[in-house]
C-alpha cells in the first residue's frame, strides 16, 4: 500500500515534468531553425523528451513491481 502510494506520486511527478517539457515556454527554447545531427531541433527535442518520459514511466512502474515481488519472495522464504 505504501509502495503503491509512492509509485502514484512518482507518476504524478512525471506528469508535471511532461506538462512543463511539452508546453510553452520550454518548448519555445527549442523552437528554432537549427539542426541536431541533421535533424530539425524541435523534432529531435520532442521525440527525445517523449522517449525520456516513457523511460521514466517504465522505470517507475516496473521497478516498483520488481521490488514488491522480491520483497514478497524474501518474506515467503523467511
Amino acid at each position, binding site marked *: 500500500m505504501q509502495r503503491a502510494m509512492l509509485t502514484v506520486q512518482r507518476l504524478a511527478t512525471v506528469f508535471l515534468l*511532461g506538462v512543463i517539457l511539452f508546453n510553452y515556454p520550454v518548448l519555445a527554447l527549442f*523552437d528554432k531553425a537549427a539542426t541536431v545531427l541533421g535533424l530539425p531541433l*524541435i523534432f529531435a527535442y*520532442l521525440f527525445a523528451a*517523449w522517449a525520456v518520459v*516513457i523511460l521514466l514511466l517504465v522505470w517507475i512502474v516496473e521497478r516498483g513491481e520488481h521490488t514488491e515481488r522480491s520483497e514478497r519472495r524474501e518474506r515467503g522464504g523467511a
Partner: protein
Amino acid sequence: MLQGSVVVVASALYLALLFAVAYWGDKRADAGRSVIANPTIYALSMAVYCTTWTYYGSVGRASAMGVGFLPIYLGPTLVMALGGFLLLKMIRTAKANRITSIADFIASRYGKSQLLGGLVTIIAVIGIVPYISLQLKAVASSYDLIVGYPVLKAVTGGGEPVLADTTFWIALILAAFTILFGTRHLDATERHEGMVAAVALESVVKLAAFGAVGLFVTYSLYDGIGDLFARALADPGLQKLMTVSADGSYSTWFSLTFLAGLAILFLPRQFQVTVVENVSEAHLKRAIWLFPLYLFLINLFVLPIALGGLLRFAGEGINADTFVLTLPMSAGHELLALFVFVGGLSAATGMVIVETIALSTMVCNDLVMPLLLRTRALALHAERDLSWLLLAIRRGAILVILLLGYLYFRLAGDAYALVGIGLISFSAVAQFAPAMIGGMYWRGGTRDGALAGLLAGFLVWTYTLLLPSFSKSGWLPANFVSDGPFGIELLKPHQLFGLSGLDDISHCLFWSFAANIGAYVVVSLLRAPTAAEASQATQFVDALKTSRPVGSALWRGSADAGELVALVGRFLGPARAETAFAAYARRHQLVDIGRAEADADLVHYAESLLAGAIGSASARAMVASVAKEEPLSLAEVMNILDEASQLRTYSRELERKSKELEAATAELKAANDRLLELDRLKDDFMASVSHELRTPLTSIRAFSEILRDDPKTALQDRERFLGIIVSETERLTRLVNQILDMAKIESGNAEWLVEDVDLRAVVEQSVAATSQLFRDRDVALTLDLADALPVLRADRDRMMQVVINLLSNAVKFAPPVAGRVDVRLWHGDGQLHVSVTDNGPGIRAEDQKVIFERFRQGGDAMTSKPTGTGLGLPISRKIVEYFGGRLWVESTPGQGASFIFSLPLPTTGRETGE
C-alpha cells in the same frame, strides 16, 4: 494487380481473419480461459485510439504544420502517467457499480438519473458522428485511390447517387460487421473479449503497416533520415514545418494536448476498452508505459513520410492525407500499397467497431429503453423475455449511427481534412470532463449541476464548431461564419463576443469549458445534494477507499424475491437469470431463493445485474417498480454514511487497541517468565540455606548430646567440645547475618550511607582488623598503596566489608608454609583499583564464575571441607556493583588467585561543584 476485385478479396480475407480471432476469443472466454487476460493485449487494445486520423491524417497535418500533429499523442502520454489513480478509480467504480458506458457512469454518479444518461448519450452520438464519418471518408478515399492505380488521384465525383457511392457501401459493410462482432449475445457485464482480442491484433497490423511505409520512404526512396531532412531543409517552402511557432501558436499546441488528454479518458471507445473491458486492475500498470510507447512508435515516421511526399509530389496537387498510400503506389510497390490499405482498414474498423458498440450500448440503455419502458401503450412491463428487444435495439443503433456518419460525410466531409473532423469530436467528448472528474472527486455535484454544465458546454460546442462545419460545406450560408448570424458581429461563431486571436478549437475549448464548468459548479451549489445523489457520491468519491458502505446499506423496503427473479429474467433471459440467482443463493447458503422475502442485499444484487444489461438508471426504475421502497431522507442517508465512517474510525481504534494489547501481553509474559525464574532461584536458595544451617546445627547438637549423655567426659574433652559448640554457633550467627544482609541488598532495603571515602584508609583499617588472622596462620602480607588518591563517594563500612572479605578469603587459601598475600591500590582510567593476591592453589577456570554465586565455593564440594559461608563474594560483588564498580578474579590454577575490584571516581564537575 490492384484491381477492385483483388482489393475487395484482400479486405474480405482480412475481415474474416478478424472475425475468426474474435470468435476464438469469445469461445476461450466462455471456456474460462481468457485470451485478453494479459497486460500487453490490454495496452494494445487501448491503441484503438489510433484511427485513420493517425494513420492517414497525421501525415496530412504534418505536411501543413510540421510537428503540429504531435500534441494529439503527447496529451494521452501525460494522462497515462495519471492513470495510476484516475483510470484506476474509474475502473474500480465501474466494476463496483456494473457500469457499462460513460453515459451510465455519469447517470449513476448523479443519483441514477435517466435524464442525465439520455443527455450524455445524445451528446456522445452527435459528437462522435463526425469522427465515424472521418473513418468512412478515409477508407472510401483510400479504396478509390488504390483501385485507380497507377493514377494517384481519386476521381472525386462527390455528387454521385447514394447507391453508387463507395462510402455508403463501406458504411453498410462496417455496420453488418459490427453487429456480427459485438451483439451476438447479451452479456450482463457488457464485455466483449473477442472484440478486444481482434482490436489488439488490429493495433499490431496498423503499426506494422505504417512502420513499413515509414521505412520504405526513408530508406528506399531516400538515403535515410538525414538525407530526407537535409533535402527538406534546403527547400524554403518546407522550412516553416521545422518549427511550432511558424504555422500555429503555442495556445493551439496547449489546447490540442489538453483535448487529447481528455479524449483518452472520455471517448466512448476508450472508456469501453480501458474501463469496461478491463480484466484486471493489475493490467493497468503495463499500459501506463506500453500505450505511450505505441504512440511514440507510430508517430516516429509521420514527419519523414510527410516531407517525403511533399518533396516527391511538389506541385502535383496530391492530397497530403493520402501520402501514406500514394508514395508506395508512385514507386510501383503494389504489395506494399495493398498492405497499407489493409493497415488503414484496420485502423478504421477497430475504431468503428468499438465506438459503435459503445454508443449502441448507451443508446439502448440510456435513451431507448427508458423511453420504451415508460410507454405504457407498448405494454413492455407484461412481456416475459425482453432480451431479444435489447439486442434488436443495439443492432438498430449500430446501423443508425453508421448511417448518420455517412450523412455527415455527405454534408460536411469534403470541407475538412481528416484531423479537422476528428478535433470537432474531441471537443464534444471533452464536455464530459467536468461532470466526470467533478463527480469522482467532489461530493457537492448534483444532477441539476451536471445537466446544466453538459447542456451549456454542448450548446457552445454546437454553435462554435458543429454549425460552422455545416456552414463550411455550404449546408448553412457561408456568411454565418464570416459575419455572424443575422449579421451580428459579436455572435460570430469563431470569434464569440469578439474573442479573437485563437484558432477555432482553442476558441471553442475556452468558451465551452467556461460555460460548462461555470454552470456545473453554480447550479450544483444552488441546492444541497439529495439523498440519492449523496449516497451515489460516496460510492464514486470513495471508490479507492477500502471500506465504504455498500449500495445495499442505503436501501430500505421490501420486495418479493420471486418477482425480482422474474424481472431480471425479462431482460437477461430467464435461463441466465436463474443461473445468476442460483449462484447468489449458493454464496449466501439460501435454500430456495424464490420463496424468501428479499433483503436489501438481494435487491441490490438484482439491481446490479439489471444495471449491466440496461444501465443503472433504468435498472433503478425497474427495481422500484416491483419493490415497495421506503424512500430515505437526506438526513437518514447522511446518518448511514456517518455511521459507516464512524465504523471505520472504530475499527481503526480497535486495531490500535488490539496492537497495544498484544504488546502488553508480551510484556506480561516476559514478567511472568522472570517471576518463575526468580521463584526457582528462591527455592534453590532456601535449599542451600537449610543445608548450610543444618551442618553447624548437627555438630552443635552432636556435641551437646555427648556432654549430656556422658557425665564422665574428661574435663579436657568437655572444654574442647564446648569450644566447638561456641565456634559453630558463631558460624551460625555469621551465616544468618550474611543471609539477612544479602536479602536486604537484593530487595533494595539495605541502608547505604554515602559519603566521601578515602579508599587507602579503608584498606589500611581492614588490614589492621584482619592482622590477627595473618599472624595466626603465619601468612606474610605486603602492601603497595598509592599516595594522594582522590576520594570516592561510597559507604565506608560496606567498603571495609568488601576488603575484609577479600583479605580473609586470601588468608584462608594461602598455603600454610610460605603463604603470602599482596594488596595493591592504584589509580587509573578515572577509577580506583584494589587487588588482593594470594599464592594459594588458584581457582580453576570453570569455577571463576561460579564462586560469585550464592553458596558456591571453589573446588570439589564432595572432597574438600567448605571453608566459608559461600555468601561473602556474592555480597562483595553486590556492594561493588551498587557503587558502579566491578569485582572479578584472575587466576591460573597452581599459581594463586588475584581478586580485583575497581570503582569509578565521581566526575570532576561534581568534585569542583562540591
